[in-house]
Each structure stands twice: as C-alpha cells, then as structure tokens.
C-alpha cells in the first residue's frame, strides 16, 4: 500500500487536482499577469464562447483536422501493416524504419515540413512547378494549410496505427486462411471476410485514440501555422491558449477545455453507438 503512495500523490496533485481546479477556474476571470486573484464571473465565460463565431469555426476546424488525419493514418497504416506482414528479405529493417516518425519530435517534423513546403526554396514546389506551373504558398492559403497540417500529422503518427494493426495481424490463425483456400476464396475475398473482421476491434480502438489525440493536439498546428491564415487552421486548443494569454483571461482558456471535454464525451457516445464491434459479435 505504501508502495503506490508516491504514484497516487503525483497523479493526484498534478493530474486530478488540475482537472478539478480547471472546472473551478472556468467560472472566473483570471488575468495572466495576476493569476493569484481570480474574480468570480459565473457563466460569463461559457456564454461568451457560445456566442462567439470563432469558437464554432474552431470546433469545425478541429473536427475536419482530426477526421482527415485519422482517415489518412488508418488507410496508410492498414496498407503498410498488410505489406509488412508479407514475407520478404529486408522486412525487419523496413519495420524498424517505419517506426521512425513516431520517435521524431513533433517540432522537428514540423520544421522539416516547413522547409520542404517553403514557397520559394521548398523541394515540393520545385518538383511540382514543372507539372502545375504554379508556385503554391502551401501554408499561406486556407485550404492547403489545413491539408499540410493533416499531412504532417499523418506522417508523424501513422506508425502508431501500423504497429497496432501489424501486431493484431500476426495473431490471426493461418488455419482460417487455409480453410477458405480450400473453399476457393480469392485473396480479395480472404481480405474482406477474414482479415478486415479480425482487425475491426483494434481499428476501432486505434481510431478512437487517434481522433482524441488529434482533436486535443496543440503543438503541431501551433508551430506549423499558428492557426492561420485567417484562423483557417485554428482549433480549440489554440483558441484556449489565445484566450488565456493573448486575450489575458486564463479562466476563458479553461472554459474552452471544459467544452472540449464535453464534445469528446459526446463523440465517444456517438461513436460507440455507431461502430461498437463488441456488440455485433453477440
């Protein structure tokens, strides 16, 4: 019992206490210059956000960003996991290489992307220019900035999907495939009727986790675009930071956090209702 005490203390003081403190602060005005004297304002922060157009467009941006990134990660992760489950020499080396982006700090991934996407000196435009004849300012236009953010997110985090799916692929008993071969199934039929159903449980969990993490992501977008151009890539975590420090009200930032949690819970509930693979098996 005493052995677990330090863990409980750390988690209690630095995770549970801040969550409760956050709820308390969301009903207060807190200046970032004078954070020790919160002023009670009731529901004012909540009402301000609900009436604020930027809040709703940031929510939409966050939904697009998470949904787009997770969709790309799932498709890429699935294809590469299926490929790395095949037998060929050099496979283990490639399995190691694929894990690399998950190890590379987000700051580095973002700066590498910025360097490659630079409108004048970037390699991407250099390669595309002869084809399209355009010099695209990737991070300077609303649409392409969002796509770039999704691309960086996908490159950085798809290995997580790939490892999870590959681990699950290795546990599918070969006898299932052998039996279907005797029945004359094609490779595509085997994929559709054996592989996909077997993977659905892991895919459900992985998609859920990655959606949550993309929705909560602050660092990647903040460094890549800072939310711009014209708020087109601003998501709720960035709004929270902006309200807390640029607009000088930490309480408002905390209220954004509360709304994010509520949206996440709502999405969870909906997601379980639509996709829950555990229920289908019954």
């Amino acid at each position, binding site marked *: 019992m005493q052995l*677990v005490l330090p863990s409980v203390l750390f988690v209690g003081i630095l995770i549970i206490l801040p969550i409760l403190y956050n709820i308390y602060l969301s009903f207060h005005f807190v200046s970032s210059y004078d954070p020790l004297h919160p002023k009670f304002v009731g529901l004012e922060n909540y009402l301000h956000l609900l009436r604020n157009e930027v809040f709703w467009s940031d929510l939409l941006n966050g939904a697009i960003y998470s949904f787009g990134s997770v969709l790309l990660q799932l498709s890429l992760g699935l294809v590469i996991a299926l490929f790395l489950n095949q037998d*060929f020499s050099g496979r283990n080396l490639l399995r190691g290489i694929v894990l690399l982006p998950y190890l590379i700090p987000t*700051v580095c991934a973002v700066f590498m992307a910025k360097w490659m996407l630079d409108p004048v000196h970037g390699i991407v435009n250099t390669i595309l220019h002869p084809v399209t004849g355009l010099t695209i300012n990737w991070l300077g236009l609303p649409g392409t900035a969002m796509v770039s953010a999704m691309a960086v997110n996908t490159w950085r985090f798809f290995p997580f999907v790939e490892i999870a799916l590959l681990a699950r692929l290795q546990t599918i008993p070969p006898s299932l495939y052998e039996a279907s071969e005797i029945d004359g199934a094609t490779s595509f039929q085997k994929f559709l009727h054996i592989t996909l159903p077997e993977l659905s449980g892991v895919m459900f969990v992985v998609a859920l986790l990655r959606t949550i993490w993309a929705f909560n992501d602050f660092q990647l977008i903040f460094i890549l675009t800072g939310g711009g151009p014209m708020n087109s890539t601003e998501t709720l975590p960035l709004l929270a930071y902006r309200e807390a420090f640029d607009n000088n009200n930490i309480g408002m930032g905390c209220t954004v956090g509360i709304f994010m949690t509520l949206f996440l819970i709502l999405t969870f509930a909906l997601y379980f209702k639509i996709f829950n693979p555990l229920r289908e098996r019954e």
Partner: protein
Amino acid sequence: MRKKATRFITYGLAFLTASFILTPIVWTFLCSLKPDSEILRYPPTVLPHTVILSHYVKLLKETYFPAYFLNSLLVGLITTPLTLLIAAPGAYSLTRFTYRGRDIFATFLLFSYMVPLLLLGLPMFMLMSRLQLLNTRASLILSYVAFCLPFCLWILRSFFLSIPKSLEEAAMVDGASRVQALVKIVLPLSMPGLISCGIFAFVLVWNEYTLALLFIRSEHLKTLPLGMVAFMGRIASQWGYLLPAIILMIAPLLIVFMIVQRALVRGFLAGATKG
C-alpha cells in the same frame, strides 16, 4: 515469371514506403551541409556541391542551442529514472496487494491520456505560479513525471501480472524481504517493460512543447522544442541554423533507438531459448 513480377512489386512497395519515411530526414540532413548560397539556390542541388560543417559549428558556438540541448538532456535524465523509481513499486503494489480504490485508480490511469493537455496545462500553470515554481526546471520535471506515470504504471502492471507469484513466495520462504523479491526477481524479469517505459519517458520529455511554453520564460532554461521555435522567430528564415538543429535534435533518439532495439531483440531471444 509470375514470381519475378511479385518480387518486383514487393521491392517497389518497399522502396516507396522507405522513401516516404526517409525523404524529409535525408533531405534535411543534405541541406544542413550546404553553404547558405546553395541552400537558397534555384533549382536546388540534390547532393551538396560544397560540403561544409560551418553551420553546425556556428550553431554550437554562436547560439543558445547548447543550453537548450543540455536542458532537455538534464530534464530527461532526471525525469526518466525518477518515473521508473516511482512507477515500479507502484505497479507492483497494484498487482500484489488489494485495497480500497485500487481498481478505480488503475482505471483512471487509462483515461488520463484522453484529457486535453491544455485542460491540465492552464491549471498547472496556476498551480506552479502559486508554488513559485514558474520558470524553473523543477516545474517541468515534476509535471513530466506525472504525465509519464499512467503509461508506465499500466505497462509495468501488465508485465508484473505475467510473473507468477510463486517465484517471489519461494524467495521469501528462503528469507528474502518483499523489496528484495521485487528488486532481485520481478524487476529483472520485466526488463523489456522497464526499457520501454524508460524510452517512453525520455521521448516524451524530448518532444514536449506545450507545458514548456507555459512554464518557461528565460532563454537559458528553455528546452529544445521551445528553443527551436524561439530560434525560428528571432532569426527569420535562417534555415542555415535550423536545419542542423533539427538533425542534432533527432540524432540522440536515433542512437538510443538503435542500441535499445538490439538489446530488446536479444532479450526476447534469450527468453525464447529459456522457454
């Protein structure tokens, strides 16, 4: 004929996958070796015509980069063992004893990673300012340990669960204490788990930006991610400094990964022959 075609497709796919991952890293590395005039040349050269290391030298001599690097290293090297020191006994207790609230605590750990970081970050900022810990390395170390604990407790818990209690009981019949049983029997058998927790903690510290942004103001206390962004702002589009900085920030992770991956594989093999 068909076999040849399959081989061709397989290695084509392997090449595509590898280049998707490696292109940004290799391109950054190549450009970091070019002189300024060549970095900005249009069209760009693939391999540097002139290889220079002067950007690396300048980065280390004329900027705060060494300070950022040492700060990240220091925070990482304190956070990692501290996390393991707290998590190992904690996870052991979660698997070997029963008490009220144990299962609730374990379940909460699982959900703590779904909480938005800023939901914790802003109140943590307030907490740290109350404790007068803002703008110190201690504020980072304390909060990073707290962030690493849920994952490490969970991983170590599953490792400890797989070790039969009878092993420890036998040792304790022979006169070993509970702590000796943990240190001499359970921990060595959980080596792969301890290593993955260690890597997790260090990589988290090396990567973490958001909390550092909230807590740290002084230039000489900044960690690498924070320092790199500060860099970008101050010397606008000075890619000559930024590109080598990216490479130097990735390098230690690659080295650790290569060493540890071999050790992990060896560990698994040893386990397999024993079994």
